[in-house]
């Protein structure tokens, strides 16, 4: 095995996408579509797992060049990179991708054929772009994957093309991530200017070697790019709206791809980030603040998918916190754990709520234990990992490592630890709310089980949440780092946190007074209305501007196009028109007509009368005589 096989990874799902959509005129039946999609999604996992094993056993530092483009003096050397980081994340992405797309086969079975093709093609492309970004050995490929992911997420969030809400949500996700992408592009271009190469292996040392100001600028731009993609404060608003897409889309988007990309970016460029302490501190602060904000907002959600969305915001906040504390390896471990339990949560919640006729209210979870036991128990496993139930779940180990990093990072770190701990408590609260609602029995519920394509991914992922628990420490060590260990008391406090959260969840579910308060807290549910503020500050003025520009407000439509035309018309009126019948022309024309008229007058001289001629001759001779006399006079 060699990194050469990594070249297979990206094209496989992309090929699946091409077959599905590119062969548009060809008729595919449902089964063919599902087969192609499943092949495109699982084959990368088949290739990636041996690659990961190869990485585990042997030297794991491979660069696989693709081809070189010579652009003037610069050489754009496209390459894939297989190192512990990309191998670990790649394995996670391929497995989660295979699970989610496999799950989609049953979940989307009722869709139209055309919709199904579009859906699976986009999902495969989504997976391909994430793999492209993860395995990228140069900034071009990296950015290509990054942007493709943004595009696919736009299409997938707006999958229900007949729903205005879905399209608005897709547009919002696209615009907000696009704003952040601009920062990332700027950072990558600055790095390219420093290094003169696009290889990540050259960019990072060149970025470190440059002066403080530029390094700080690059690090800050990278952070801004990551924050946008990862839906961190203040860019978080697109993620809760993105729930308009189908549930498997959310499962993929929230766990292994898209939102995690920001964390991956920062982990990838961590050596560079770590040379700018200020940006690191900002990263940690943003991460902690987002973790707390997301957890708080999630507690007040009444919709399972929105709850999970805020949960993702919060969990990525934890990852950013770890990166800001100089522990990107811990962040990646949390990424892996989070990918497993978050996709599990989405898939099982999707399965439960699909039975409940499409509504995704938490109330739809009611009676889930009886009605849909497999999915419900899987959801419990996911929620346990999300909350971080000690010792058995992966979530506990990775979150504990993050909390430990914070504790050990000095006085400022202890503040962050406090924030992160309260976020962890709230995580327990919101994670168990749907679980407890599921315990409430419902009369007349029939027990049903999903098909194999529903249950197999869910069971795999549920097993994964527990199987990953003992692997958190080896993962961090695989990435050449050690898991930090705080004093025992601190660890115990961390272990108690999810149970406090569980107690809160109990109170919120079973005490009507509190649950009513939660149901009424609309301000908190809307994420302290940051979205509304953006609507007023950014969207409405922009819409007003566009309306004004299109002339809907009684103004001139399209001033950019119209004003030059109006100016030109004014010029014509003021300058060209008077000159068009210019005095010279008119003088000539007048001269011509005057000549005709004068000739008419002159013809009267020729009266034909003898007497007139005699007079004329006399006058003429007299004049000639006068002339002769005058000229000879002396």
């Amino acid at each position, binding site marked *: 095995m060699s990194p050469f096989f990594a070249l297979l990874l990206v094209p496989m799902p992309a090929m699946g996408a091409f077959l599905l959509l590119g062969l548009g005129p060809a008729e595919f039946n449902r089964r063919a579509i599902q087969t192609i999609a499943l092949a495109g999604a699982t084959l990368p996992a088949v290739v990636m797992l041996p690659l990961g094993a190869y990485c585990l056993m042997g030297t794991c530092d491979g660069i696989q060049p693709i081809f070189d483009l010579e652009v003037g003096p610069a050489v754009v050397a496209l390459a894939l990179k297989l190192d512990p980081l990309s191998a670990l994340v790649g394995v996670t992405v391929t497995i989660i991708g295979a699970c989610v797309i496999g799950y989609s086969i049953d979940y989307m079975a009722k869709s139209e054929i055309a919709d199904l093709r579009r859906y699976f093609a986009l999902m495969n492309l989504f997976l391909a772009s994430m793999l492209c970004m993860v395995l990228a050995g140069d900034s071009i490929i990296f950015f290509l994957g990054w942007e493709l992911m943004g595009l696919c997420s736009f299409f997938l969030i707006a999958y229900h093309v007949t729903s205005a809400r879905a399209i608005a949500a897709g547009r919002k996700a696209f615009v907000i991530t696009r704003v952040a992408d601009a920062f990332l592009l700027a950072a990558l271009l600055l790095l390219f200017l420093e290094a003169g190469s696009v290889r990540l292996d050259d960019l990072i040392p060149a970025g470190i070697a440059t002066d403080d100001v530029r390094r700080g600028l690059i690090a800050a731009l990278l952070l801004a790019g990551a924050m946008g993609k990862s839906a961190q404060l203040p860019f978080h608003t697109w993620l809760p709206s993105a729930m308009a897409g189908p549930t498997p889309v959310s499962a993929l988007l929230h766990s292994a791809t898209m939102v995690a990309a920001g964390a991956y970016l920062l982990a990838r460029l961590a050596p560079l980030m770590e040379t700018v302490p200020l940006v690191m501190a900002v990263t940690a602060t943003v991460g902690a603040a987002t973790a707390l904000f997301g957890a708080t907002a999630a507690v007040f959600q009444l919709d399972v998918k929105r709850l999970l969305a805020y949960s993702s915001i919060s969990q990525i906040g934890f990852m950013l916190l770890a990166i800001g504390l100089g522990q990107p390896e811990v962040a990646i471990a949390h990424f892996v754990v989070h990918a497993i339990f978050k996709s599990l949560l989405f898939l099982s919640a999707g399965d439960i709520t699909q039975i409940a006729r499409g509504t995704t209210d938490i109330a739809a979870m009611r009676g889930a234990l009886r009605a849909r036991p497999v999915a419900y128990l899987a959801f419990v496993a996911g929620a346990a990992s999300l909350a971080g139930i000690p010792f058995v779940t992966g979530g506990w180990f990775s979150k504990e490592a993050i909390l430990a990093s914070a504790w050990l990072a000095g006085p400022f770190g202890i503040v962050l630890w406090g924030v992160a701990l309260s976020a962890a408590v709230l995580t327990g609260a919101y994670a168990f709310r749907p679980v407890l609602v599921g315990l409430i029995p419902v009369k007349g519920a029939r027990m049903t089980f999903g098909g194999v394509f529903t249950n197999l991914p869910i069971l795999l992922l549920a097993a994964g949440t527990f199987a990953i628990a003992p692997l958190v420490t080896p993962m961090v060590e695989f990435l050449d780092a050690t898991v930090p260990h705080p004093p025992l008391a601190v660890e115990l406090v961390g272990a108690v946190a999810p149970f406090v959260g569980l107690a809160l969840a109990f109170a919120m579910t079973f005490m009507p007074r509190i649950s009513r308060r939660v149901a009424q807290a609309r301000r908190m549910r809307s994420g302290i209305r940051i979205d509304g503020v953006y609507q007023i500050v950014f969207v409405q003025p922009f819409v007003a501007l566009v309306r004004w520009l299109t002339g809907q407000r009684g103004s001139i439509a399209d001033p950019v196009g119209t004003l030059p035309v109006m100016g030109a018309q004014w010029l014509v009126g003021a300058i060209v028109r008077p000159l068009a019948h210019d005095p010279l022309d008119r003088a000539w024309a007048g001269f011509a007509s005057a000549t005709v008229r004068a000739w008419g007058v002159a013809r009267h001289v020729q*009266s*034909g*009368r*003898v*007497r007139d001629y*005699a*007079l004329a001759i*006399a006058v003429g001779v007299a004049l000639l005589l006068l002339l002769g006399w005058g000229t000879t006079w002396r």
Partner: protein
Amino acid sequence: MTPLFLTAALVLATGLFAVGLFGLMIRRGILFQIIALEIMLTGPALAFVAAGAHHGDPGGQGMFIFVLVLAASEVALGLALYLRLGRHADVSDSDTVNLLRR
């Protein structure tokens, strides 16, 4: 022949010419206009004779003979036209024959 006499003769000649010209212009009858032309011709003829006498040159008298011949031929032509017009169109007014095509 004194210069005074020459001057008087030239004034008389100019007067004759002016009277003839005047007559030519104000009279509309063709016959009268021919007569006015004759008077006009006498003016220069007199001036030739007076100038010849003043300079003692017979050329002046030669010119007088020439003018007489000119006047005779002119009168012959003029009267022929007059008769022709009178017979053919029954007009004696020169203004009415301003358009020859009629």
